[in-house]
């Protein structure tokens, strides 16, 4: 929404500089996105006539224009716009002009051709920013005349406001002025025109019928005669242009002007073109068509509202766009003016379904004021009277259903307990009355208020809505700031604290944290060797972002490939992030888990195992087992499943070379992926303290020959179980293949340290436990002790 300071000032005697007013508007919740001074600083810009247009010999996007700026001489100008024709009058910035944006106009060459000034767009002379091309000046102007004089421009300030969806009242100049007047404490006055009424009564000339009272809450029409379609007065055209609407003709412009000023959209029909002398508001029939003003034939559904004529033919889409069959034309002499109130939800869904949004629909879907039609009609007639139109007596006003406005009980105590203020009842009433809410004490001497909300505030229907209005008009900045003391002990959950340990461990291992987007392209899961049936986005902007990841692997492999394409190899990275899968059974939401993944480019499965064991150490989760076995997308002979306390928490190893190839990763990739939620949910940490023994320890070495399918971890577990409490340390210190060990077998050499807490172990004790270990391994595994 844009407003002009001069227009606002027609409603109240505002004080303050434009900057101060801008701050006040922002403080009222009408955020000033931009503020520009217009209509001033145009010295040196004059009316010029286009004498000749020809292509620039050396540039496609520039043409050469000869203009006469008042001295009869042809001046050559280079221009990037192509919307002018010979004979047009245009604004021309002469040499030496300083434009409103500070640009200096000097004589310069553009691709070898001289340019002796600049032709101006509406934006360049501060007439709004929504039009392309050079401003073509309508009407008879004198060449050489200052453009401010020709256009009747005067200095003004244009505010660009961001209006929230709950503020339909602020979608018009009067509404903004009302708020500002309340903030400034100056009286707000609405116009109250009473144009003279002449001619035949409207009631006998057009009938109105509302067939769907939920769709149409009010349908008021009046008739104006003596219409001469022509240009609007300059002052009106300037204001419309400034607010971003293109002036069209006096009838359409007056309609737009009233909408911008009072928030009431209207539609004008050529009375003679309305068949059957009637207008009817109803829902469309299935597949009913109507040709709209933009000359498109629209096919409607039964949810859309239409205005039909006396023959029940649809002649416009309710609240969104009128039809071409009854459009005002040069031959129009009498118009029917419709000022209606449409159900916001119906308009919103129709506008969305039809992909058709207009200034009118934007206002109806937020909720227009059902009670402003009478005033808006009179204002419209007053404006059109400037070009000779007269208002016929009689108002045809039919009502449907509009939101009921009841009385809201507003407790003074509630206002203060919500806001932290100390306002008394009358102060609250004063604030509310200043924005035309009616606030009366509830009962004789009561502490509370009964508030009636004005018809232009459909958003305000409960006590808390009114509390917000009190806060807004009082000023958020005037509410004392207090800091509540938390009633609880803050902190991270154990899971969140552990997750930090995980990250710290990863960073300590030299790994960088990555954060790829969780969207994948179709086929990515399959390329990664995973189940291709992932959770899918039904309305993606691009196909590349249509599948939700079921594993962190595709995203990280893309990251490796991306870095490799910048000659960055050997990446060691980790990611903590959610993965999503279709749930096994019917449940409200897809399966979503937080995973940790580690990728070690250029390193093998062993490096990935080391990362896992370091992590297990950091989390004190030592009761884990690596069990040989692969999982989709992983290297079939270099992968192990990780079990903690018998529960599978993930996999470690290397990514399948075929997958790497599919993602364009040219290095071996060590990989670890864990379901963090499962892992951190299992018992870990909190091991009881074991005092350090002061007695000497004894070390023995045992080497076993085993085949390649026997896991070193299984030999280790067997030793641990057999050795019992005396074992304080066990390490695999050598793996040997080759003669004299037979082919297909290897030697695994372990060192075991024994120690008792309460005595020095005797040689006999050590020998006994040694023998137990040997017997256990040879007895339960295909292993033989090496001599």
């Amino acid at each position: 929404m844009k407003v002009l300071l001069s227009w606002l000032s027609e409603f109240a005697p505002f004080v303050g500089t434009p900057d101060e007013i801008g701050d006040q508007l922002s403080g009222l919740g009408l955020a000033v996105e931009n503020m520009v001074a217009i209509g001033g600083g145009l010295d040196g810009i004059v009316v010029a006539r286009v004498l000749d247009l020809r292509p620039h010999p050396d540039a496609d996007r520039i043409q050469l224009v000869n203009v006469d700026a008042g001295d009869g001489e042809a001046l050559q100008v280079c221009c990037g716009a192509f919307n002018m024709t010979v004979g047009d009058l245009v604004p021309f910035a002469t040499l030496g002009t300083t434009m409103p944006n500070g640009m200096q106009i000097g004589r310069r060459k553009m691709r070898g051709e001289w340019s002796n000034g600049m032709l101006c767009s509406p934006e360049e002379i501060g007439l709004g920013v929504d039009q392309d091309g050079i401003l073509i000046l309508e009407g008879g102007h004198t060449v050489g005349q200052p453009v401010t004089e020709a256009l009747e421009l005067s200095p003004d300030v244009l505010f660009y406001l961001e209006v929230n969806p709950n503020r339909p009242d602020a979608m018009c100049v009067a509404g903004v002025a009302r708020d500002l007047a309340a903030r400034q404490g100056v009286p707000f006055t609405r116009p109250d025109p009473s144009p003279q009424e002449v001619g035949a009564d409207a009631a006998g000339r057009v009938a109105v019928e509302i067939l769907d009272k939920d769709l149409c809450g009010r349908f008021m029409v009046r008739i104006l005669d003596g219409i001469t379609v022509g240009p609007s007065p300059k002052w009106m055209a300037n204001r419309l242009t400034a607010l971003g609407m293109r002036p069209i003709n006096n009838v359409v412009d007056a309609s737009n002007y009233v909408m911008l000023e009072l928030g009431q959209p209207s539609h004008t029909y050529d009375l003679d073109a309305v068949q059957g002398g009637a207008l009817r508001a109803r829902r469309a029939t299935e597949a009913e068509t109507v040709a709209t003003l933009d000359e498109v034939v629209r096919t409607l559904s039964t949810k859309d509202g239409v205005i039909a004529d006396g023959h029940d033919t649809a002649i416009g889409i309710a609240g969104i766009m009128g039809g071409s069959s009854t459009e005002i034309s040069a031959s129009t002499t009498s118009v029917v003016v419709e000022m209606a109130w449409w159900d916001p939800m119906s308009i919103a869904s129709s506008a969305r379904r039809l992909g058709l949004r207009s200034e009118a629909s934007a206002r109806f879907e937020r909720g227009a004021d059902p009670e402003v039609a009478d005033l808006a009609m009179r204002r419209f007639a007053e404006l059109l009277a400037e070009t000779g139109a007269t208002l016929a007596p009689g108002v045809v006003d039919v009502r449907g259903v509009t939101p009921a406005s009841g009385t809201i009980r507003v407790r003074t105590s509630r206002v203060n307990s919500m806001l932290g203020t100390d306002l008394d009842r009358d102060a609250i009433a004063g604030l509310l009355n200043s924005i035309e809410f009616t606030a009366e004490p509830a009962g004789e001497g009561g502490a509370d208020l009964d508030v009636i909300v004005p018809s232009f505030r459909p958003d305000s229907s409960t006590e808390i809505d009114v509390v917000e209005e009190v806060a807004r008009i009082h000023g958020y900045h005037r509410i004392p700031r207090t800091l509540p003391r938390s009633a609880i002990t803050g902190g991270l959950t154990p899971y969140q604290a552990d997750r930090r340990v995980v990250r710290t461990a990863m960073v300590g291992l030299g790994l960088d944290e990555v954060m790829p987007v969780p969207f994948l392209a179709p086929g990515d899961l399959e390329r990664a060797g995973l189940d291709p049936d992932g959770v899918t986005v039904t309305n993606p902007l691009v196909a590349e972002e249509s599948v939700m990841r079921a594993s962190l692997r595709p995203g990280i492999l893309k990251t490796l490939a991306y870095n490799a394409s910048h000659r960055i190899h050997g990446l060691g990275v980790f990611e903590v992030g959610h993965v999503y899968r279709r749930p096994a059974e019917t449940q409200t939401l897809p399966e979503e888990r937080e995973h940790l993944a580690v990728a070690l480019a250029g390193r093998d499965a062993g490096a990935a195992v080391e990362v896992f064991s370091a992590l297990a150490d950091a989390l004190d989760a030592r009761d884990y087992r690596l069990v040989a076995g692969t999982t989709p997308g992983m290297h079939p002979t270099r992968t192990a499943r990780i079990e903690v306390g018998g529960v599978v928490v993930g996999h470690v190893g290397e990514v399948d070379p075929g997958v790497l190839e599919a993602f364009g990763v040219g290095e071996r990739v060590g990989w670890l992926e864990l379901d963090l939620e499962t892992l951190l949910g299992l018992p870990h940490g909190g091991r009881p303290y074991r005092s350090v023994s002061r007695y000497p320890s004894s070390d023995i070495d045992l080497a076993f020959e085993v085949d390649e399918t026997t896991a070193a971890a299984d030999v280790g577990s067997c030793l641990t179980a057999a050795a019992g409490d005396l074992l304080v340390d066990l390490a695999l210190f050598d793996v040997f293949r080759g003669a004299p060990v037979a082919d297909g077998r290897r030697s695994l050499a372990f060192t075991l340290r024994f120690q008792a807490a309460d005595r020095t172990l005797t040689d006999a004790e050590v020998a006994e436990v040694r023998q137990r270990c040997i017997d256990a391994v040879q007895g339960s595994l295909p292993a033989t002790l090496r001599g």
Partner: protein
Amino acid sequence: MTPDLDQHLADAATAIEAAVDLDALRTVDADLLGKQSVVTTARKALGAMDVEERKVVGRLLNEVRSGIQERLEARRTELETAARSEQLESERLDLTELDRGRRLGHRHVVTRTWERLEDLFVGMGYTVSEGPEIEDEWHNFGALNFPPDHPARDMYDTLYVDHGEPGSTLLRTHTSPVQIRVMEAGGPPIYSIMPGRVFRSDTADSTHMPVFHQLEGLVVDRGITFGDLAGTLEAFTRAYFGGDFTSRLRPSYFPFTEPSAEFDIRRPDGTWLELGGCGMVHPNVLTACGLDPEEWSGFAFGFGLDRLALMRHGIDDLRELFRNDRRFLEQF
């Protein structure tokens, strides 16, 4: 005899000085003080002497012997020192040659920002809550007081997924649904922040991503006021950005808060920056979560987390956060 011993001491001194290393010195030591040495031999001969002579020669021998020992000791120290410095010299290293730039890994800048914010609010007595990224329509909109088909839903460019009824399951458009989950999970008092990943149907550019992060805050307790909200955000602003920053609230609109506000911060240079939205928890939201709005009141706030990361480090393109170029990652 006497001149002989004097000469012997002088010769011994020469031999000791001539020992070039500790091995040579040990040989000299054996020659001068061993069983076959002049001193030992002379001592053996003492027995044959009369008392007086023995006394004189004995003293003399002792002097010579200790003279030799002193010289040996001095030479040993000298040689040991030389040997150690030779050893040390042979171990000389150019440490700059050994600095190969061993590096630790780097937390992602979003994680660093996330954890910094967590620490700040934990210090203010808040817990940290999380929720699913794929949400149902109720938690993302319905419970947050967005009526069906309400135009306010258009403020969010929602991405939906193929789960359940069409339109029933979506990628959460904000962290606000976690408010609902926190209130459903347990009653007040609630002092919690909810950092998390959110999604919008947006084309990636320097300030937009279809995926980004937010931090939500929720306080529900008895007697919580709008003034508490303003004071909390002011305390946060000063703690996070610095004491020379300040904050303001401007009226705004969100279906799930009322009164609603935009939360701006003022930089030391006097310019304002819009940071996020906030407001008093709407009574309908409390009711939807089974809380009596007459008994409990609360405030909520939310802002973009990525933007704070960009601001702190002067990063000018949001897309960098998700590109994962190592040259970017290792700067934080």
